[in-house]
């Protein structure tokens, strides 16, 4: 059947903006070959935006969920998986005269340690006193 096809293939385009981002779908285009799809994608989707990597995937290779099925349903309480399920901790910590700590605080702290200058600049007490 493909032999008689008179039209170009549809390619879905995925862009990775920086090394710390995943590839994100930005749209689709038609092209005769993956090579050309790639070259067209650069200008059709990245005329202004930065990127470090680009995928083009023939649409026929994609398996997707339906928008209408209950595929993503989570009906019962699943907050035990989430931060919001642990609000009690804050109250308990206060009993021990400690405050609740979140992961951002540790990430920020680790970053400060590796950069003494940043530590100086980012001390929260000083920012408040300004």
């Amino acid at each position, binding site marked *: 059947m493909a032999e008689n096809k008179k039209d170009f293939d549809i390619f879905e385009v995925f862009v990775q903006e920086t090394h710390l981002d995943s590839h994100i779908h930005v749209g689709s285009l*038609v*092209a005769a070959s993956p090579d050309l799809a790639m*070259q*067209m994608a650069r*200008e*059709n989707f990245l005329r202004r935006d930065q990127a470090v990597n680009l995928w083009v995937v023939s649409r026929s290779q994609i398996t997707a969920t339906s928008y209408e099925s209950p595929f993503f349903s989570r009906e019962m309480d699943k907050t035990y998986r989430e931060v919001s399920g642990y609000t009690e901790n804050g109250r308990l910590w206060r009993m021990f005269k400690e405050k609740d700590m979140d992961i951002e605080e540790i990430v920020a702290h680790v970053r400060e340690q590796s950069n003494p200058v940043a530590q100086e600049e980012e001390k929260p007490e000083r920012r408040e006193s300004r």
Partner: protein
Amino acid sequence: MKIEQASVAKSNPVYAEALVNWLYQLADDELVIGHRDSEWLGMCPDIEGDVAFSSIAQDEVGHANFYFTLLHELGEKDPDALAFSRPANSRRNALLLEHENHDWAYSVVRHMFYDLWDELRLKAFSDSSYFPLSRGAARMLREEYYHSLHMTTWFVQLGSAGGEAKEKMNAAIRKIWPDLGDLFYIDQEKMLLQFGIIQESSASMKEKWEEQIKGLVQKAGLTWPGPVPGVQMNGRLGEHSDDLKRLIETMGEVYTLDPAAKW
């Protein structure tokens, strides 16, 4: 000898003259091919390709703008005046680039021929004695990567498709061949080499170009028309066809309404 600034280059009139002369050849090539490319806007084989080709056109005009700016720093008129108001006989572009676009095959072949030459030429001054030029070469070479990739893809796919496409591609090569001569001609070449403004001779670059093109012609299953002819008319010395005169007239239509006005 390394020259950092235009003011230093200007203090050596012989050096400055050779440099200015060379920059005109580069700027005019880029402006004219960029202008021709832009005529494909809205006319390309498919919508996606239209968008892609326009970026190439913009890159070329952008490169012209870069060279005109260097010229202005060296005491020539402002970039717009240089681009829009010089008569045909003072333009230094290669003849091939000024011709009308004809069909897609002609445009693809011409562009690929030019891109590969331009890449060699950029490499020849990527270590130029004139710093502003070598710095620009490095940046332009990075943009040329996509141009060469894109145009060689077209060239090889259309050639290897056989049938009507192959015929049209071969016809385009034959049509272009007699116009190639002055593309490889560098005015005041001896001086440019002597001053280290460029570091490779046109003869050596031309040899590499022939080798690359021969490989691509073969890969695309097309026909090599034989030795590249010598210079007939020489665009580098201001000899041009009526195509260029019309191009300049069109390009300057609004500018010349009032060159003193701000547009």
